[in-house]
């Protein structure tokens, strides 16, 4: 019977009901899309780093957790020394530049021979390897983001014109690759690297290998790649965690305020109805329960639409920006749903108490 009353009440005010559901859906979408964008960005970067194939990463002393911001200050010769260590199968140096022209991406300057030893080689889709200083190889998502660029297309990066010679499958470090020589010419940093990828003879010995390297080079930053991936999550990265918490808090406030306004207006309009129910013998708890259940129903519908909408937005973002991944996880769906329901309960609590506390005689006389 209560369900019938709730449905009838919501149906009788279709615009208000729709707006309330949409507001809750937006609350959910705000959380899922923003968290999805940050999570997608960080975790996709981490997985590409792991996709190079090395089990260990060595970076300069005091290097940032963000590979793109690592200084290219290590001598390339260090890599040759690392390669002589026991349990080291191959080492490849990488010089890193962050391109902010016509987009934002990491560009790797690689030594092709050692890069292939560590990674097993590029997974080619079209074209072939760079030959000259103005040649680059790009991944498929980057090519798609540039209007479906093909081998032979000219592009501008790092204030220099390049020609795409090949397109590879994404997931191996950067999205754009050039030869180490070409990168060093561009940056003027001859003989320098920002990062070494180390492939081990026995990947199971990665912990001891990392420990040995740290002992050998205490001032350098040495990462187990799997630990690096774990660190590069939106909840572990300092600053990002606070950003996400702020977004969630704002979304929660929006949800509370919208539901509060909606329910407050609803109970004002339904003062007489509430008076009728009270005259029939409905208790205060009945009235409170009715309002809370109505708001809960709105929130649940909002959650459903919000989750669906988030996936639609994620698809849209990836369609327009192929290199941007929006990662919507089950855990965040649960969190966002929980926050939406909580905001509904908080928002409708005061209106429901106000409704229940109305004097039946006054409520019946309300016009």
């Amino acid at each position, binding site marked *: *019977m209560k369900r*019938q009353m709730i449905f009838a009440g919501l149906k*009788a005010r279709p615009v208000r009901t729709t707006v309330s559901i949409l507001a809750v859906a937006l609350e959910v979408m705000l959380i899922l899309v923003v968290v999805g964008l940050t999570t997608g960005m960080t975790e996709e970067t981490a997985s590409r780093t792991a996709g190079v194939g090395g089990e260990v990463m060595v970076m300069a002393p005091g290097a940032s957790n963000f590979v793109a911001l690592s200084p290219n200050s290590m001598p390339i010769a260090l890599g040759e020394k690392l390669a002589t260590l026991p349990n080291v199968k191959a080492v490849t140096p990488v010089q890193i530049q962050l391109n902010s022209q016509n987009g934002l991406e990491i560009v790797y300057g690689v030594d092709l021979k050692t890069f292939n030893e560590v990674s097993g080689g590029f997974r080619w889709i079209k074209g072939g390897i760079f030959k000259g200083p103005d040649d680059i190889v790009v991944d498929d998502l980057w090519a798609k983001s540039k209007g479906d660029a093909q081998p032979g297309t000219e592009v501008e990066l790092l204030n220099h014109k390049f020609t795409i010679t090949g397109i590879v499958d994404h997931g191996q470090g950067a999205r754009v690759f050039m030869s180490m020589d070409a990168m060093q010419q561009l940056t003027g940093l001859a003989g320098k690297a920002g990062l070494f990828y180390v492939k081990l003879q026995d990947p199971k010995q990665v912990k001891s290998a990392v420990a040995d390297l740290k002992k050998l080079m205490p001032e350098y930053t040495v990462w187990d790649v799997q630990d690096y991936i774990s660190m590069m999550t939106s909840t572990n990265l300092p600053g990002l965690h606070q950003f996400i918490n702020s977004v969630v808090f704002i979304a929660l406030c929006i949800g509370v305020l919208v539901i509060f306004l909606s329910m407050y207006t609803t109970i004002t309009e339904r003062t007489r109805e509430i008076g009728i*129910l*009270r*005259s029939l*013998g409905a208790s*205060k708890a009945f009235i409170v329960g009715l309002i809370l259940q109505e708001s809960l129903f709105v929130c649940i519908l909002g959650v459903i639409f919000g989750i669906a909408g988030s996936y639609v937005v994620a698809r849209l973002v990836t369609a327009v920006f192929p290199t941007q991944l929006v990662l919507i996880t089950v855990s965040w769906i649960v969190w966002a749903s929980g926050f939406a329901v909580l905001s509904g309960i908080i928002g409708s609590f005061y209106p429901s108490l106000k409704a229940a506390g109305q004097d039946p005689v006054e409520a019946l006389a309300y016009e």
Partner: protein
Amino acid sequence: MKSLLETIDLRKTYKIGKVNVEALRGVSIRIRAGELAAIMGPSGCGKSSLMHILGAMTKPTAGRVLIEGRDIAGMNDNELTEIRQHKIGFVFQKFNLLPTLTARANIAVARHIKGSTSDHDEHLAEILKLLMIEDKMGRKPSELSGGEQQRVAIARAVATKPSILLADEPTGSLDTKNSEIVLNMFRELNRRFKQTIILVTHNPELVTYTDRLIEMRDGVVVSDNDPFRGDTESELAHPARRV
């Protein structure tokens, strides 16, 4: 004959700004099970205040109100709610049906609030037949005429088998023909189901449908043709006859 409802020196004062308005100034009446009584008086005589107190919607300022022997004057909100749930049925001048629900659902809400799990039974079937609204159950109030709405309201009020049915100006919003139909139905409910009914009205024509008239003026009872006046018992000895 045993009292179903009794008031003893009932008083009700409203505070409007700095002014105290005495709506009831010592009302003592006794209603017995199965009676069909009218409380009549001009506007402002206190009859609505009396009805609200008898219906456990508000508490008196002083005095006692006994419903089936229980004094409701000192009850808290939960206790008054329980009284309304189980003992009182209301019919209002403006029908006061829930506009978003069908007639059937309006009646079902009242039974649900009382705790009844069944939406339909023989008693309800008889009521609907008596009130001639069996074929109107699927309609919403906006799809019913004034007379039909009031009959649905009556059905809602009696479907829970209340001890007392209170009707506040039940024909106030109806035309003459529908008023006559509704009043005859009250009489039939009283006759067939021994439903105790109190009609509150300012219209002297309604009085002809009732067995007893209590006249009020300026917050006091000025006349009462109680056929059992002088009966001193104020507790039920036998259960009220009810269908």
